[in-house]
């Protein structure tokens, strides 16, 4: 029996699939071969019919997307550094890190824990998906996510941008306010296909597959890069013992997570629920004592 209070390494809700359960799948995003082409961003938007996100020149290297949000489920970060790519070629002193970020599909997913409608659920593939026809837009999941991934879609930005004139009207016109994020292409998985971003990636920076295999592959890859002296090579969210029980989508980074705008030691926010309730109970008790005491002592005056 799994509990949100006691992270056990098994995603909550996954076992309930019984015979319908598939091997848990995920992404291993190897940033050491990412060429920053953003094909993943485009493939994701095309497959999932995500609205365009507006045209803002951010002057942040070649990143004009900025962040993961309701209209961006893959985001390529660009970081320019005056550091050598490998420890031994100090003369260059310049490197350009590129990383395609995505929903982590946490083993212990706070968004799923806090969803009051059951819209967010654990699929038979071990991934975390929002059911768009159930989500009521309460938004509890938004602050729950330790990575700032899940996001409410603005009402105004759902207007059809005109690039898909054949889109059924309900897709283009339905008002929103619901939350959206990467589904790991749940529909494609059901059809036996890999997610659109992994399919489009020309250099196998985004690898899709059973999580066990990906973790094994990532360990070998890290070893190779460390042998070759790559500066700062490290795995991120690969470890099942971390604060979110390991991610379904994990990364090989070439610097510390903070450099990419990722939290260094994320913890499932609901892990503190018990403590929070206890604290709240204590606070309530103290308050009650205070109030009662107030009457008592006040009565004395």
């Amino acid at each position, binding site marked *: 029996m799994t509990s949100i209070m006691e992270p056990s390494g098994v995603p909550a809700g996954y076992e309930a699939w019984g015979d319908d359960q598939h091997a848990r799948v995920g992404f291993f995003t190897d940033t050491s*071969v990412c060429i*920053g082409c953003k094909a993943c961003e485009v493939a994701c938007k095309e497959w999932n019919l995500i609205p365009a996100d507006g045209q803002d020149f951010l002057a942040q290297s*070649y990143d004009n997307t900025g962040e993961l949000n309701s209209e961006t489920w893959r985001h390529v970060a660009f970081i320019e550094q005056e550091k050598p790519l490998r420890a031994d070629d100090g003369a260059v002193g310049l490197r350009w890190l590129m990383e395609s970020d995505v929903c982590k599909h946490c083993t212990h997913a706070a968004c799923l824990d806090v969803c009051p409608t059951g819209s967010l659920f654990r699929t038979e593939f071990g991934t975390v998906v929002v059911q768009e026809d159930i989500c009521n837009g309460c938004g509890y999941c938004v602050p729950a996510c330790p990575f700032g991934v899940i996001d409410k879609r603005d009402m105004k930005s759902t207007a059809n941008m005109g690039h898909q004139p054949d889109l059924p009207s309900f897709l283009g016109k339905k008002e929103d306010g619901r939350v959206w994020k990467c589904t790991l292409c749940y529909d494609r998985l059901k059809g036996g296909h890999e997610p659109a971003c992994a399919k489009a990636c020309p250099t196998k920076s985004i690898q899709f597959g059973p999580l066990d295999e990906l973790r094994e592959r990532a360990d070998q890859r890290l070893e190779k890069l460390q042998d070759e002296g790559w500066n700062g090579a490290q795995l991120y969210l690969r470890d099942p013992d971390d604060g979110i029980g390991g991610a379904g989508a994990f990364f090989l980074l070439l610097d510390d997570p903070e450099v990419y705008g990722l939290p260094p030691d994320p913890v499932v926010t609901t892990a503190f629920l018990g403590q929070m309730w206890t604290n709240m109970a204590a606070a309530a008790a103290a308050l009650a004592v205070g109030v009662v005491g107030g009457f008592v002592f006040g009565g004395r005056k």
Partner: protein
Amino acid sequence: MGSNMAENHPVGFQWVMEARERGAKVIHVDPRFTRTSAMATKWVGIRPGSDIAFLGGVVNYILQNELYFREYVEHYTNAPVIIDEAYVDTEDADGLFSGWDPEQGQYDVTTWSYEGMETHGAAGQREEGYSPKGEQSGHGGHGGGLKHGEPPSEDPELTHPRCVFQILKRHYQRYTPEFVAETCGVSVEDFAYVCEALVQNSGRERTSAFCYAVGWTQHTVGVQYIRTAAIIQQLLGNMGRPGGGIMALRGHASIQGSTDIPTLYNILPGYLPMPHTENYGSFDNFVQANVAPTGWWGNFEEYWVSLMCAYFGPEASSENDWLFDHLPRIDDDNSVYWTLEQMLDGKVRGYIVAGENPAVGNANGKAHRLAFANLDWMVVRDVVEIESASWWYDSPEIESGELKTEEIPTEIFFMPAATHTEKDGSFTNTQRLLQWHWQAVEPKQDCRSELWFYFHLGRMIKSKLKDSQEPRDLLINKLHWDYPTHSAIREPSAETILKEIGGYEVESGEPLPGYKKLKSDGSTACGCWIYAGCYQNGINQPARKKPHWEQDTHVAPEWAWAWPANRRIIYNRASADPEGNPWSERKKYVYWNGEQETWEGIDTPDFDETKPPDYVPPDDAKGPDAIAGDHPFIMQSDGRSWLYVPQGLEDGPLPTHYEPQESPFDNPLYSQRANPRRQQHKDADWDPYNPIEGEPGFELFPHVLTTYRLTEHHTAGGMTRSIPYLAELQPAFFCEVSPELAEEAGLENGGWATVYTSRSAVEARVLVTRRMKPQTVRGRVTHTVGLPYHWGQRLLTAGDTANDLLHAALDPNVHIMETKAQTCGIRAGRRPRGKALTEFVESLRAQTEKTRPEPEETRKT
């Protein structure tokens, strides 16, 4: 070098990444630190326009240290050939080769030839009265006037002072590491790294490849950039071998296809020359002028006649010389910028623009837009209404008042085009691979494929002219124009056209297996001889999609089809040693089987299958038979690759460092500053050049300007600026500058800058980045301003057009503009608008006093 492969060819770049993962060194020599540099083992930042100095330095390093592949060089290149006594090198004539005619501004190439060799020009130009200068580039200058395949004078020891090897050595002896460092703004150490990496990774056991793109071609010495790399690859033995070669990365999906089956004015399909206006007298004379006495081009007539049979069917016959007398002719240079000049002069009435957006994509955009206003009519076919279609009501010139809509006489027809998903067809990619694609959906509304447009246009013209007796209409009437159509819109069958291109036997209609079956008697028809066999056995060969993991060899011959003869590496005879044995087990590819007396290997051999390695041609041998058994480069008249090019190039037999048309520096080697043969538009006022050092106003344009593409957009942007998902990824025209230049010019990251030249001024958002590095060149710090050229007035992301800044001085061989190295000024803030913009540019030009200086070369010689 000269390419940003990761950004502009990301799908092909997966193989570079795979090679890197397997231990290959990836070196990127480029002015900017790009996404390619980020993936490379090593980046060397080079000053734009100095690549010949760099590559010439590599040549010198190889020669001085005797690191060349001796056996390969001696047998497979023209290194031993002795050159005419009258040849004078640039090193002895201050930057000019012998034969320079200052009046004509051209070379007489006679003195460049092999000693004892009768000279004739490239194809189509040996007719009487032709002087061997001028337009040399007909189709690659494949023919030398050799009596048989062996040059008359050779020195296998490579020591004769006039042999190519020694000429090469002298020509590059001043290209020392220190010279390279000073001229290119690189460190001696970085240069040494590149030299050593190349040499260590070449030879019997290993090969190295160069990848280039328009970063090399788009210069006033563009062809010679590539030639310098070719010299390196020949010296190191990297041609015709697996893992070697020079990869020309082409910009569009089928730009290779559009030279094979050309959109170029001077060639017909398969690099056959377009006839000139000269009077050949007869078809036989035309053939004699073009057929190479020795080498593969000895088959010229077979290819020509088969093409005419494909064009005209039964109407072409030996009796009417295959209609040769009726074919259209070209006179001289009929290229894009020449046409532009004619248009500005009001000499062009109509213009059809398809698959191109010259108002944004061509240098000096303003000149193009003004020229359009001199046309009677203009047809634009594109998937969206691009700037070249909307200039008459929405352009910088409308804004400035230079053009007024109501005064423009040009009638514009916009024809919506179908996209690649809406039609069948093939793409020929950069490695000559024809890959078929299928229609996924019907084109919408009035959108139509190219095939549909030209087929029905031809059909309608034919129908209108069918009763005409005018001689000028005869060719149209005789045109064989019979293709089956399907679907409600009567789309022609692309496969039928592929079959015609691939060749068939006229009588039976049976597809041909390959170009060796082509005949000159009218019994075969073939739309493009190098594509012959692409429909063999009635199978659409480009449509084969068997993945490599299901095939026997990594060459994967059953994935699509490569021209010629499904050969994946051309000149692959060079992958074996002179005796026909593999150079090494590791690099085994094509080799001689002595028992079977045949060439074999994992690819289609590029040699007569049964010609033994020790074959010596008899004195009277012609065509391919005149090529010796140990000479792999069968398209050349002597069967060797050319370190030194005796004919076929306009601007010299050897590449020499010249500065670009506009450069902050003079030439460190010669008082001859730039390529003397470059094409300038001297007599017009539409293409003024920024002053060079010593001329008034030089200080107005102190920085180097270079333009390029981004992954997120495609060329002039019609296909990408119109797509929201792509527009948002690069949503604004921007310039890239170093922090040092930003400080100097007061530019703020994310703010606005105005970039200006003598042609125009544009405004761009500022991206300050360490990836742009100031360079120290000959003691002076020089800054480069980088501008992606995708933007124009319209579509979802609009912006100023980088090409409006650029001049259109050209490379003389291929008439391409110099977009990669010009000069500019930059200042903070947005540009003046409307009329004030014109006034601003005029004030700049006024400060340069003489806006179009006489070319300094003419004065000096």
